[in-house]
């Protein structure tokens, strides 16, 4: 009878299949976008690695290589062929994980990358977790107490954390916590005598040690990771706190919050179940972005802490003019970066009921 019922009747025809189809389309769209960006990334790295240098072969074999090595590489890279064929070859190589051989280690670059990646992953993960578990409550606290002291404190801490050169903070951190206070052990992931005690399952020491039940190794690994993760996490903390605060402020002044209060709900429930519930989806995207940034930003932190991750690998490759390694590392980190961004976007679309329908 009522006009409004027509609206729901129209939607009654959409069942499980329709929503599955919509979800599939959304995923397909994101994958297409990802593919396009990946292509762009390879194009750029191709340009940087093959087109821009005056002699791309020299960049790879080094200027002390023998002539026959040079010639072999020349043919292998297909530099006698036209550019687009070179690119297609390059693309083929990248897709099969063939990044060439590293000058420094004389191993296939992909092998090196797989070896060093887990360390960076572990660092970025712990740092992000720190950022989330400290930053989110800080942001909520600041928003709820807008204008009061705690709000100003959080804002200032956030601003400073986000303007800080991470590598410098790392140095200062080492100075204070390692040199002066001696609260944390020195560089590297583990003390030497713990090295190799735990079978590498994932490459991430904390997980591997937990899996093996070796808590001594776990403790040692934790003590090594805590400082670099905290330093790296400062940026995550600042950014997440800032964004959480901003999102919460947006939500708190919405009408439905008034409705929740009118219903007689406790302030805690109003803030966390209602306001924060609406912020959660946006936060996922932010956390994804942060994680991706940290993966990339760990390059500098690893240098300061001698952390054997991909960042350090790439910078060493840089100083040794190991072009294959640099390009390989760039593509892997770049792809992860792009992939995580897109994944968070996808999750956002799937979680927000307004976007879903």
């Amino acid at each position, binding site marked *: 009878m009522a006009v409004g019922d027509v609206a729901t009747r129209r939607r009654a025809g959409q069942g499980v299949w329709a929503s599955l189809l919509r979800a599939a389309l959304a995923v397909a769209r994101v994958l297409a*976008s990802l593919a*396009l960006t990946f292509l762009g990334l390879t194009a750029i790295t191709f340009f940087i690695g093959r087109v821009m240098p005056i002699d791309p072969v020299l960049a790879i074999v080094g200027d002390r290589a023998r002539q026959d090595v040079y010639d072999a590489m020349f043919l292998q890279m297909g530099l006698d062929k036209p550019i687009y064929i070179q690119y297609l070859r390059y693309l083929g190589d990248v897709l099969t994980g063939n990044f060439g051989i590293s000058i420094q280690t004389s191993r296939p670059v992909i092998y090196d990358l797989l070896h060093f990646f887990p360390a960076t992953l572990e660092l970025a993960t712990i740092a992000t977790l720190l950022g989330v578990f400290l930053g989110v409550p800080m942001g909520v606290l600041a928003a709820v107490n*807008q204008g009061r002291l705690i709000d100003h404190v959080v804002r200032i801490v956030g601003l400073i954390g986000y303007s800080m050169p991470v590598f410098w903070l790392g140095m200062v951190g080492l100075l204070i916590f390692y040199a002066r206070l001696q609260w944390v052990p020195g560089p590297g992931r583990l003390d030497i005598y713990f090295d190799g005690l735990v079978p590498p399952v994932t490459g991430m020491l904390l997980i591997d040690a937990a899996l093996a039940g070796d808590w001594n190794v776990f403790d040692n690994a934790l003590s090594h990771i805590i400082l670099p993760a905290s330093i790296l996490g400062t940026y995550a903390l600042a950014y997440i706190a800032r964004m959480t605060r901003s999102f919460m402020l947006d939500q708190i002044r919405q009408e439905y919050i008034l409705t929740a209060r009118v219903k007689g709900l406790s302030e805690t429930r109003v803030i966390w179940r209602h306001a924060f519930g609406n912020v959660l989806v946006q936060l996922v995207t932010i956390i994804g972005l942060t994680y991706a940034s940290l993966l990339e930003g760990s*390059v500098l932190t690893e240098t300061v802490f001698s952390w054997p991750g991909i960042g350090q690998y790439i910078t060493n490759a840089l100083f040794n003019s190991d072009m294959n390694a640099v390009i390989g590392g760039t593509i892997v980190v770049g792809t992860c*970066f792009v992939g995580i961004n897109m994944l968070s976007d996808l999750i956002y679309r799937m979680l927000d009921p307004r976007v879903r329908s």
Partner: protein
Amino acid sequence: MTSPPVPEVPATRLRLHAWLLSDIPNTAFQARCQRAWFGWRVLRSNPIAMAGLIIVLSLILMAAFAPLLTATDGIIQNLADRLQPPSAEHWFGTDQLGRDIYDRIVWGSRITLYIIGLVTVIVVPIGLAIGVISGYVGGIVDQALMRFTDIFLAFPRLILALAFVASMGPGIENAVLAIALTTWSPYARIARAEALTLRNSEFILAARTQGASTLRILFRHVVPLCLSSMIVRLTLDMAGIILTAAGLGFLGLGAQPPSPEWGAMISAGRQFILDQWWVPTVPGLAILTVSLGFNLLGDGLRDVLDPKNASK
């Protein structure tokens, strides 16, 4: 009942004040000045933004008046005087080659300004051009340009800069180019969004009926209106750009020694951190301060130019 005597205000100041506050501006110029004045009033009332503005202005002044503010050129070595702690003679102490750190910081501000200036000059015109054309023309051009922009949107700045520099060799210009490459996309998006909203507005239609060519419309009408959001975004991005540039400098990929680039100073001074902490610490504080200044200013500008964000 007479009112108390009004203090004498110079006639010219009164006139300027009245001119700025009058309800009905007589010329476009007056209207623009009024808007700028009100914007300035809002900015002035925000202490955080003012702090940021002061820091940024100090940076600019420091760079401009570097020869007047320093005793040396920051490059000449004086090994007898190396690693001196901060004192009255050397405000920030000296580094491992005896150079006064304060002087190097001041000269380094020129490099910082050069980097951000260069990035701005590359990123803003390209972003504007692509965004405005994309938004205004629409259709296939829009689709294609936006796909192109989106590809760059998700690129990792530092890593690509590393690769770039690996291939082209270290140097400020290469670092700037690398940074610019990964920074321009959001500006194209902003410009496009503005162009899309403006495309259908009446004054554009009026200009078209008067026979203005598309190019003229774009340049004289659309572009100026996009500028304010771009400026806000730029100021907010500036800190990130400075930090990336410093990171590159730290890795030795930016300005080469003996150039007093702040990131490179940190790297060079790293080994002295235990006993001569001032050598790497001071440049780091400089970077922090400048980044902070831009962030504060950016927040303040956003409040001025986008009032609905004012509570944040």
